């Protein structure tokens, strides 16, 4: 339990630092940077253990989102999107529940539940995250086509990076 806590804490912290110091500085070509916003730090919340109570996930999501906001200068935007994602997490878990069910200390990672399961899980949650983020960024439903375009463009790149991180860094247990 204690080891799990330290693991998750360090993972979230590293992802946050990677997000605000490296990914934030990446500026793609002027036209595409309008649409592409690489966001991967939500992987820390995606990878929290299955059995953890949802209100703790909500609080962690709020704090990490707020942390990112304070670096991006968009107070409340990432926090709100992250809380939405944390709220969607139990439903997605239920949707993708394997026939045998989850074990008590199950981690929703590729090593324990398979790479395709993980890819589905991370995609659903990242889509929720990015969709709510871009809706809140525009703050109106008038430009729904722009919102969807931004979501899909950013999602494609973000999920590839998340996938690579999961393959390269997560060792087999």
């Amino acid at each position, binding site marked *: 339990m204690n080891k799990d806590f330290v693991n998750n804490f360090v993972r979230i912290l590293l992802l946050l630092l990677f997000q605000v110091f490296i990914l934030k500085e990446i500026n793609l070509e002027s036209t595409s940077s309008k649409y592409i916003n690489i966001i991967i730090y939500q992987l820390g919340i995606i990878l929290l253990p299955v059995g953890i*109570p*949802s*209100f703790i996930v*909500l*609080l962690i999501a*709020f704090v990490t*989102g707020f942390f990112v*906001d304070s670096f991006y200068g*968009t*107070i*409340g*935007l990432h*926090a*709100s999107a992250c*809380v*939405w994602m*944390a*709220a969607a997490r139990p439903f997605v878990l239920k949707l993708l529940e394997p026939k045998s069910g989850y074990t008590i200390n199950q981690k929703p990672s590729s090593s324990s539940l398979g790479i395709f399961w993980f890819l589905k899980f991370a995609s659903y949650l990242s889509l929720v995250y990015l969709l709510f983020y871009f809706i*809140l960024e525009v*703050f*109106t439903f008038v430009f729904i086509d722009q919102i969807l375009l931004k979501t899909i463009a950013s999602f494609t790149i973000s999920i590839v990076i998340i996938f690579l991180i999961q393959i390269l860094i997560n060792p087999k247990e």
Partner: protein
Amino acid sequence: MLNALRIIIKNGSVVLFIVLQIICFYLIVKYNQKQNQIYFYSTQVYSNNFYSKYKSLVSYFNLKSENERIITENALLLKKYYTTCSRKNIDTLLIDSIRFKYQIIPADVVNNSVSKRNNTITLDKGIKDGISVGMGVISDKGLLGIVTDVSEHFSLVMSILHSKSRISCLLPHCGFFGTLVWDGVDPNVLHLEDIQKYAEVRKGDSVVTSGYSIVFPENILVGRVIDLTVESGAFTYTIQVEPNQSFFKLTHVYVINHQYKEEKEWLEKKAEIYE
């Protein structure tokens, strides 16, 4: 026991989710300029719509008193009509110029404030109904203010309960002119300035518009003198005026448009050449 705990935890997370989202929304609107503008713009649009709906609902409740008021107003108008008709035989030219000088647009009040230092009234008529900036606004009982901003369907009126409102008024009993201002304390007390202390002013004297500015026609009732004093060493009276139209209950108003306003302004600009 465990089940109960589970239910609490489950519902607790829903409450927590809502609380967190409300905090986020507040933060977004407070600290992000673009979102803040969108938020305030849309709330204004919605609240204006809401106010018009609310007003249209409430107006049913006082239909009876409204009817009585309209009947009395009709009577007054008829009286005026007949007096002008009788004058028509004497001087047709005068009647024509009066009839065409001012154009009247009726409007309903959708929002009104009295408690602030600078009070405004919102009307449900805008550019589409021919209202433009600088027109005067009156009710059947008295003077209200001047239009300062217009949108497509609404217009904003600076009421005389405003720090920048200065309206030229006349005391018809003694024939002296003064300026009507508001000190921001009591919406039922206005101040008439610049009346020399040798003028014979009495309590209860009526105050009317002077007609010097073309925003308002002359002889529109503004209010009555309720108190007058002379400060020691001053040359002018300190006159308190009670507005005839109470600002706490406004429903129907009339916007006054002077037809030849531009012409008069153009002509008066020429005076600068000789100065």
